[in-house]
């Protein structure tokens, strides 16, 4: 029963989202209003690692923890792209991951959104010009929102997702 005593002692650890740092989140395309309306309060996210160094993944892992808690916004991670509404893509798209990324996008039913996380996903970051990469995520699939950072903080990633959904004003 130690675990319950500890739970009670710690209490709710979730923090409110801070203000968005400038120049971090960019909306790349016009996002379909129907998509935003449909995905209002229940969004399933499929995370795709298109060749990243896993720095962004470590930050994304924090999102489902108590401090950042993406579930309070109605977001949750899913395993299959068929269940997903939003693809969270990291990494410069390596040559080996180009086709799988494309297949993941095709396997996701409409309406869907894509959020590219990290400098690598935006423009290959430190790997730009390498023989092993194809380009940013937008070279393979259409991207809606990019989040800059190497890696971006979990709060910023979360704000990027909420921006894609058009819900940034509600921070709770």
């Amino acid at each position, binding site marked *: 029963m130690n675990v319950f005593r500890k739970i009670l002692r710690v209490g709710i650890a979730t923090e409110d989202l801070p203000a968005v740092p400038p120049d971090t989140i960019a909306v790349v395309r016009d996002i379909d209003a129907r998509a935003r309306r449909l995905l209002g309060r229940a969004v399933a996210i499929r995370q795709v690692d298109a060749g990243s160094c896993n720095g962004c993944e470590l930050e994304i892992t924090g999102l489902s923890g108590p401090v950042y808690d993406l579930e309070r916004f109605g977001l949750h991670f899913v395993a299959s792209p068929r269940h997903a509404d939003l693809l969270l893509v990291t990494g410069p798209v390596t040559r080996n991951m180009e086709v799988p990324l494309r*297949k993941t996008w095709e*396997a996701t039913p409409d309406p869907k959104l894509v959020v590219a996380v990290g400098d690598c996903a935006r423009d290959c970051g430190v790997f730009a010009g390498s023989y092993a990469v194809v380009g940013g995520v937008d070279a393979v699939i259409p991207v809606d929102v990019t989040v800059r950072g190497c890696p971006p903080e979990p709060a910023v990633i979360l704000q990027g997702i909420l921006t894609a959904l058009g819900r940034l004003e509600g921070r709770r």
Partner: protein
Amino acid sequence: MTSLPLLLFWVMVAAYALAAAGALAPMPRLTRSVGAAGTMLGGAAGLALACLVLWTSDSLALEAPDVLAVAGGLIFHLDRLGAVFLAIVSGVAIPVGLYGGQYTTSYDGRYSTRWMWFNTSAFLLSMSLVTGAGSAFTFALCWELMALSSFLLVIVEHDREESVRAGLWYLAMTHAGLLAILAAFFLMGAASTGGSFASLRDAAAQLPAGTKNAVFLLALAGFGSKAGVVPLHVWLPRAHPAAPSHVSALMSAAMVKLGIYGLLRVCLDLLGGGPTWWGTLVILCGAGTALTGVLYALVEDDLKRLLAYSTVENVGLILLGTGAGLLFRSLGEPAAATLAFAAALLHAVNHAAFKTTLFLGAGSIIHATGTRNMNLLGGLIKRAPWTSAVILVGALAIAALPPLNGFVSEWLLFQAFLSGVARSQASMAALLTLGVGAIALTGGLAAATFVKAFGISCLAIPRSPAAAGAHESPGLMKAGMVLAAAYCPLLAVFTIPVLSTLTGALATVGGLPAAEPSVAIGVTVKTGHSMGAMSPVVILPVLAGAIALTWMLVRLASRRPVHSGDTWGCGRIGQTPRMEYTSAAFAEPLRRVFSEMYRPTEDTAVGTTRDASPYYIQSVTYQARLHPWFQRAVYDPLIAAVEAVAGRTRRLQSGSVNAYLTYMVLALIVLLGIVIGF
């Protein structure tokens, strides 16, 4: 005597004889047509005869004392108990005949279809006559004819060693069983009283308890072996797959039921029931048979052998009901006994229906793809939709899922056991509780087995070029399969009439309470003392209505389009059949859970290059074998012992004519001594 039953009887006999005579026809096509038509007509006549006997107070009595007078002549007496099994045999014959006509075209040119149809007709005729046999001699004669004709059918594909070995196993075991049955009849006094069942029944009252017990054990061994009781069932998984599929249907659906018939006839009718341990033994045999059957069916890759083991499982369930009936009768609970026997008989009828469906469906798969190995099948639902639909219906029925007939009889078995537990002593209650657990586990494992059988064979993508090139069955085969499949929901909907007929058939048999030969019409199956009530007639439309309503509401709620996209495989490129689940893989978790029973052996051989360095691997061979425990524990030692004795006896065959003459003279002296001595 020109009564209707007698007329129907002669029509049935004539129809089967005509089908057999068709073997003499000059063209194979005529043989097949005459054979199929005769079989169907015989089946229809037999079914009509059985229904007539069951629903009216008519019965059939036919005596021919001059035929084979030295053995007491032939006596036929079809009473209601026999009529139930005649109905099963005839009911199965109709779709089998319809199907077999076209199915046997694939045997043309390779094997003799004349001989096949002759034996099929002889098989059906002898099975029908067994149900009506009225004396021990008639019974044994028809039983042996049944065994011989089915043996000849098992070895139809005589160039395959597997079929011939299956035939040998079958021949040996059926004759061993016949010996036991004859010994049982002999002990009952058949030799002295002339052997008619009426006289045996009267004589049984005077038999000492030890003789009755011996008769019971011999009957259980002999009839049980025919029915498929573990460990005497080993011929079944060999013989049923080897025979042509429509004959496998006849064997699984009809012939094994005659084993049950023999058991009921001897133990319940002639002997009039016995002490409590009879019922206990049969329950234990039934539980063991059911669990062994389903566990071995689960790990089978060969579709027909899976169905054969599933027959063993269902026979186990029927025996559980029979044993419960014998037990309750000996404890003085006639109402509970009738319920248990009725449940067993209902399961026999239902099993005949869905096993026929499944074997005819399996036959269509073999016809379409040429293989029985489920690891080479797949994707048939798009290439052979009717075959797949028929197998789905059979699978749903055999997995005891509502609203089909398998569920009804399994429910009734549960209720029979429940009512027994409520009204018995602690020791019996413990046994019956374990029986309930066995039935439930068997039902669950059967559901898993048939998800595998249907899912791996018919769904997803074809695993071999043979399956990819599959085609639908031709018209008459389709018609036969669909007719058999139609039996399943019909038997579920008409449960009340069927059940009341069966209860009527059990009336006054072996001291069970009397009942009018009536056909009740009703909706809800109710068991006595309001222990439970269930209505398959209500479940079917409510379920269908719920599904239809859901479909309509969902169409209204959402009209979003459907796109096509590759099966999700984590983004890998391309999908091959190697990525699908196989039949062995599907059963693997359960195989691990029950590994103590299966004792699988696994061999991994790593082949290296010529340098013999262990790091340069050229090939890895993996073999997994499952040698059944009864084979290992019972038959292998037995066969080894027989071979050892035979090997030693071979020394008598010295090749010297003088030695053989000496043996003959010695034998003559001994015989003369015996004759003079007595």
